[in-house]
């Protein structure tokens, strides 16, 4: 009882304080730290300074998983923020929580804001849009995997650093030459499931899961144990056995090795740019992610990783108006172009990309447009719009476990992927039940 009274008193004080300032406060919970955290706060400050009706207050709530958990716990306690940053694998969880969220298209329409969802890049927007074209959350930070090349390492072993590495067939030859010339670490990767299965499937236009990768309903089943994926993982298993591919861990541990100059090739997010450009004491190149020549419709487009902003239910219309204004502000070409150039994340609108080009950023920072081109070269297909799978963070954990079996030589690629599909499907069925 006492707690309740004191909380009410606190709420009353907060309310009067809000009135005194005559501003509507918008709570924004996010998962960013360091330089990107400062940039995020900078955006909010710029917005607050640009008008006097609303005040956006960003609060850091831990890493992606912790932020999502904080949002969920807050919703259960009736204390949810207006905006919550949720990483892309949490998308299905948020979508299924119909009573907990306000779809972005609805927030924009009700606020009466002139807003065209078609300004967003298709492959970014698609991830957060329903099959009827309704945008549910606002893309915030998006990245896509690319191939990083340590040019010095190539020169050291007498290879031409400008050699063609566009296909895995050509990379295979390079890896053999690197290994034969005594390189310790020819290839290393970050986020193995995201790059070598999820993006691999989209890039080759083969399904990762049935029902348009889960966009068509929660009764989806995993399908990444088909010929194309098995062949790729099997080849990587061979590389691991021959010491051509070095496994360093489930997350982006390999980044330390690459930045230290140990590794020749690194498959990692385009957002690795910030870290690599500041730490690497060698010449590096950004190349498009390789594909297998002749497999599927490669190269299709790659898909995104990163996070989007979800609007939580249970607030006043006036507050949602502020949210809508802020989302519009974030989508403006100037804000987006700056965010893209500073952080290395993709621009979410075509206009921002154009602006960046006209400012000459791509000319003075060669390779920074590789990811943009890779994402936008082709119109996304049912297999390359993105993924919408429940319990997906956990399914990635299962994929990691099974892939480790392949790298260690305990399992064949077929066995491992079959097992990952079977175990993942069990989780999808549970999710289907909980979302019913």
């Amino acid at each position, binding site marked *: 009882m006492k707690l309740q009274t004191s909380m009410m008193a606190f709420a009353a004080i907060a309310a009067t304080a809000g009135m005194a300032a005559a501003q509507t406060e918008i709570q924004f919970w996010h998962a960013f730290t360091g330089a990107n955290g400062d940039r995020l706060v900078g955006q909010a400050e710029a917005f607050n300074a640009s008008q006097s009706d609303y005040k956006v207050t960003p609060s850091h709530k831990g890493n992606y998983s912790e932020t999502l958990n904080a949002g969920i716990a807050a919703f259960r306690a009736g204390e949810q923020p207006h905006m919550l940053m949720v990483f892309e694998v949490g998308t299905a969880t948020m979508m299924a929580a119909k009573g*907990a969220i306000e779809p972005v298209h609805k927030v924009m329409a009700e606020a009466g804001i002139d807003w065209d969802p078609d300004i967003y890049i298709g492959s970014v927007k698609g991830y957060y849009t329903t099959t009827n074209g309704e945008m549910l959350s606002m893309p915030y930070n998006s990245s896509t995997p690319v191939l990083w090349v340590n040019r010095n390492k190539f020169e050291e072993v007498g290879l031409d650093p400008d050699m063609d590495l566009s296909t895995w067939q050509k990379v295979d030859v390079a890896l053999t030459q690197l290994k034969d010339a005594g390189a310790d670490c020819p290839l290393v990767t970050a986020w193995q499931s995201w790059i070598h299965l999820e993006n691999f499937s989209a890039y080759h236009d083969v399904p990762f899961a049935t029902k348009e990768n889960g966009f068509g309903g929660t009764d989806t089943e995993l399908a990444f144990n088909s010929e194309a994926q098995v062949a790729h993982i099997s080849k990587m298993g061979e590389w691991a056995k021959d010491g051509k591919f070095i496994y360093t861990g489930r997350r982006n541990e390999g980044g330390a090795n690459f930045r230290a100059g140990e590794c020749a090739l690194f498959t990692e997010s385009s957002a690795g740019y910030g870290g690599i450009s500041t730490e690497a004491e060698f010449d590096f190149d950004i190349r498009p992610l390789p594909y297998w020549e002749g497999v599927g419709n490669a190269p299709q487009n790659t898909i995104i990783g990163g996070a989007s902003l979800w609007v939580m239910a249970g607030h006043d219309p006036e507050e949602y108006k502020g949210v809508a204004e802020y989302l519009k502000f974030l989508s403006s070409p100037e804000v987006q172009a700056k965010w893209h150039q500073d952080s290395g994340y993709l621009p979410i609108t075509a206009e921002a990309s154009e602006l960046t080009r006209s400012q000459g950023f791509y000319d003075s920072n060669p390779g920074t447009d590789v990811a943009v081109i890779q994402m936008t070269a082709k119109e996304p297909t049912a297999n390359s719009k993105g993924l919408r799978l429940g319990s997906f963070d956990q399914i990635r954990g299962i994929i990691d476990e099974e892939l480790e079996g392949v790298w260690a030589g305990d399992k064949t690629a077929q066995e491992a992927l079959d097992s990952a599909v079977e175990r993942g499907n*069990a989780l999808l069925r549970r999710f289907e039940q909980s979302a019913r």
Partner: protein
Amino acid sequence: MEKRVTFKGMWLPLLLVLPQMLITAVFFFYPAGQAVWQSLFIPDPFGLSMQWVGLGNFEFLLSDPYYRASFATTAVFSILVTVVSMGVALYLAVLADRLIKGSGTYRTLLIWPYAVAPAVAGVLWLFMFNTRVGVVTWYLGQLGYDWNHVLNEGEAMGLVVVASSWGRVSYNFLFFLAGLQAIPKSVIEAAAIDGARFWMRFRTIVFPLLSPTTFFLLVVNIVYAFFETFGVIHTITSGGPQQATTILVYKVYADGFVGQDLGSSAAQSVILLLIVSVLTVIQFKFIERRVHY
């Protein structure tokens, strides 16, 4: 011989145990009851709806071969942590007990690691054994041994066992040393006069007289290995490679907080609760009989 204090009425004693009962009820029975209740549902993460599934969560778990395998992993891990941390602690305590000079310094130094939080201990060990930049890994490399706990299951298990036991050695050491010092010197001297050498005295006199301490530590360490090693596993291996270090309590976390699958997570907590209760009962029933107080 035995002293017995008796109360006249029943109100005063009730009043005296009340705070303890209240704390147990609020912080143990209530959450445990919640866990049991939740384990019968599949809730959605936001608490908007709940599907009654009866024992469905338990069926789902027990039919999963990977969950069943994690029982074996937990058993191996707990036994290793208990044996390593108690064995090393006993050895150090016996040595420290024989010291004449400077025993205070030794004791203080040996107790230090206990002040290090498990997650921090995990990070320390991870740095030493990092497959690329670790100091120990580098020295092992010089000796021709290729350390890679990221892919080698045995090495991963070894590393989490050592990291979990390390801080625990201090705690056990304290109790063992106190136990050793409580053994009457006269008994040991008498045995020495009878010609019993150190090992003989340890085996036939010291160890049996130390058994209450050993028993207490056994219970406490098993509970520790079951529940409190989470931080170490999380920072060092996240349960991998494959599922080599996924112990039961780690899976509770992964399913509940990563997977947002609260029903399964609650069911796992209930299973864990049952296992620890059974283990404790077994320990008190069978092992305690062999303890000399």
